[in-house]
């Protein structure tokens, strides 16, 4: 009898010991594909199923470093145009194929191949021959070469310093040629049509419901600690919160419901379960210089001065962040803490408006997307009341998302607010995106400044770290203070709440809602 009892206890003990370690989260949008080349958002699958030549990892809160990924080391030619990557040997794709230089060349050439219809060609369009490949004038990309089985050489058309950082972005995930090629445009559309080298294997995918990734036992860094990673698609933030409180998901991402932050942070149980990290990104208000009276720099400066950003940060975002005064947020390389501050001075703003020829104030619009989170609307309503003191009569213009982006693309959208978090750790990701020759129109800034464009080009090719930092610091002052081309607001901490069973969760270096879970531990 005793032995039977012991046996039973043993069986249960083994059962309990062998219980699956499952980490379940909710995400608010269905990924259209697992293929990082074909999407500009929803990178949860690419970040966990694939690897990149280089990885960007969080080294301390708000700090990151580029570390070897599928490449163990790399050399850069003196002219900054030729990058040679020495690849890791013995890495296997999830279909059993060995990872080689051919896969790297195939992956990047596929992105530029017009048949792929890739959305992320921006990350490679500076490679030699990329334009010809994208235009269908070449059958391959001249700048991509496999020197031998484990060495890849990428030649750029001109020096481009952010290249290494870009190689660590999820868009640059490496695919297996043998697996991917026969699938054509069907690649990445289902679990069966997905194959990477990463720590997790995409096992199951039900559209608009959930997708499940399981641990890759052959992962080259070692099997992940968790067995299963489940991502539920939940569009309603209230449902998401209840799923968390009912214990059906293990992590609540406060970015999906910012209004819940005080509830969770002050809750006797959940308050102790919050995990947060700085975000390498900032909230901002655009200023469209093609819309009068914002063609006048004094009007733009007056608007900057009329907004009490500190008050908004305190009252609306519970002080979970810091004011930003430039283009580069905290955590980005070359971040300049000494950047000149934007002053809050409603009286001076009013005087500036009068000086600009508008003593009776001006009428203006702020565009809002009706379907997005209410925090944008609230913030704009606060600003509407705030700037009225200085003479800005704001009308809030509700638009649907499609109309918003279509109008913005034409450069005709009035002022709007949004946030931008780093895709890769380089100032170019901020400066060129918003103030480059095409970005400034496509994002409805129309800050068509030849000086800025020239400096941006110089910044891309300046290989001296110190000189580059100085260049961006000067450019930041020119854009934000002298030209008053936008209104940076603040960078916010990204707050997550985790269930007690989650023993380790690493906030991604850039503060995204997409993150690798390789290091996550659950009981």
């Amino acid at each position: 009898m005793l032995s039977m009892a012991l046996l039973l206890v043993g069986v249960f003990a083994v059962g309990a010991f062998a219980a699956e370690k499952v980490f379940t989260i909710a995400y608010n949008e269905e990924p259209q594909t697992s293929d990082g080349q074909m999407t500009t958002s929803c990178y949860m699958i690419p970040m966990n199923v694939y690897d990149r030549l280089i990885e960007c990892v969080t080294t301390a809160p708000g700090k990151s470093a580029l570390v070897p990924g599928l490449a163990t080391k790399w050399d850069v030619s003196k002219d900054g145009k030729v990058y040679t990557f020495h690849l890791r040997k013995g890495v296997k794709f999830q279909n059993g194929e060995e990872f080689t230089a051919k896969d790297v060349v195939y992956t990047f050439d596929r992105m530029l191949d017009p048949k792929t219809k890739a959305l992320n060609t921006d990350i490679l369009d500076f490679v030699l021959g990329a334009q010809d490949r994208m235009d269908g004038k070449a059958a391959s990309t001249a700048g991509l070469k496999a020197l031998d089985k484990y060495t890849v050489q990428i030649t750029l058309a001109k020096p481009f310093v952010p290249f290494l950082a870009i190689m660590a972005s999820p868009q640059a995930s490496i695919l297996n040629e043998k697996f991917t090629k026969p699938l054509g445009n069907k690649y990445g559309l289902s679990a069966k049509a997905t194959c990477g080298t990463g720590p997790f294997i995409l096992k199951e995918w039900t559209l608009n419901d959930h997708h499940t990734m399981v641990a890759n036992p052959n992962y080259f860094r070692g099997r992940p600690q968790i067995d299963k990673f489940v991502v539920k698609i939940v569009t309603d933030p209230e449902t998401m919160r209840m799923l968390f409180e009912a214990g059906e998901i293990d992590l609540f991402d406060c970015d999906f419901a910012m209004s819940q932050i005080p509830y969770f942070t002050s809750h006797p149980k959940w308050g102790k379960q919050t995990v947060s990290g700085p975000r390498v990104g900032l909230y901002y208000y655009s200023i469209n210089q093609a819309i009068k009276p914002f063609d006048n720099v004094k009007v733009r400066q007056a608007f900057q001065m009329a907004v009490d950003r500190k008050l908004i940060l305190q009252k609306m975002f519970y002080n979970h962040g810091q004011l930003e005064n430039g283009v580069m947020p905290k955590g980005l390389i070359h971040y300049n803490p000494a950047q000149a501050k934007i002053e809050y001075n409603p009286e001076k703003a009013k005087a500036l408006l009068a000086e600009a020829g508008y003593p009776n104030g001006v009428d203006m619009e702020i565009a809002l997307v009706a379907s997005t989170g209410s925090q944008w609307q609230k913030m704009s309503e606060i600003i509407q009341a705030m700037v009225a003191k200085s003479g800005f009569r704001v009308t809030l213009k509700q638009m649907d998302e499609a109309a918003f982006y279509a109008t913005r693309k034409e450069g005709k959208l009035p002022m709007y607010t949004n946030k931008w978090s780093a895709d890769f750790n380089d100032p170019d990701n901020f400066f060129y995106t918003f103030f480059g020759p095409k970005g400034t129109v496509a994002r409805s800034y129309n800050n068509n400044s030849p000086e800025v464009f020239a400096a941006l080009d110089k910044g891309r090719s300046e290989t001296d770290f110190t000189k580059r930092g100085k260049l961006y610091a000067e450019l930041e002052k020119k854009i934000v203070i002298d030209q008053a081309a936008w209104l940076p607001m603040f960078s916010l901490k990204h707050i997550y709440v985790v269930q007690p069973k989650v023993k380790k969760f690493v906030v991604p270096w850039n503060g995204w809602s997409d993150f690798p879970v390789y290091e996550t531990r659950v009981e």
Partner: protein
Amino acid sequence: MKKFILKRLLISIPVLIGVTVIIFFLLNVVPGDPVALMMKEHISVDVVARVRAQMHLDDPAIVRYFRFLGGALKGDLGESYKLNRPVTSLILNAFPNTLVLALWAALFAWIVGIPAGILSAVKKYSLPDNLFMGFSLLGVSMPVFWSALLFQYFFAVKLRWLPVAGFEDWRYVVMPAIVLGWSSAGIIARLTRSSLLEVMRNDYIRTARAKGLHELPVIFGHALKNSLLPVVTVMAIQVAGLLAGAVITESVFGIPGVGRIAVNAIQARDMPLLQGAVLFETTLVILGNLAADILYAFLDPRIKAA
């Protein structure tokens, strides 16, 4: 009857074509670019222009419409712009989930609505009548998203009886089916009550009572069948409506059904997917109405004769 059904089906063809024209026209009139929407914050003018050309989005609207119509006639609804998957398979994969939800919701509505209506009619102006009619009024007037949140809070978060959201086994269907079916139950209860009360005033009921029949046989043997005539019609139309209109319920409870596909398609300006979803749901409504007419004819011989 066969002629009647065939005629109704033929009439539905121009209706379906008309629906596609309206949807196509509306999506062309309102601003929005599916590629710009796919790229959102990462917009690049060059990429948008190239991908639009590759997807033939720059072709004239009329060319795109007839390309769609030509495909649809062959049973090919095209590929979703955003999801890159065949529209037909997206809809057919999602439909069983919507069907399960709608049928359980309808079943709940009938099981609760009809007895509640009968009891209210029999015991009119009594406490049960007031309770049932209050329940009906609440079901009809309370927005689905609100009742859904209340159900989730009490039954999933507080009592932990049922899961909050998702679609895995029968437990996941209980709350959404009740929430979705509540409004239909309310309508059925009110309709059953008023219809039964009206029938109970007829002479043949008085005759049955005068002959000494007990109240139960009078109600169930004589009154109920006639009073259910309008109710059955509404029930058939409701099933079609539930199949086509569970959008909010599907969103709040995270059910991967056709309604969610349609909403996502509108937001993404995904023309092929939206056309497909609308065509599919219009067909369901047409078939639901047809079923109601046929049922009515079967139940009421006067209509069949006419």
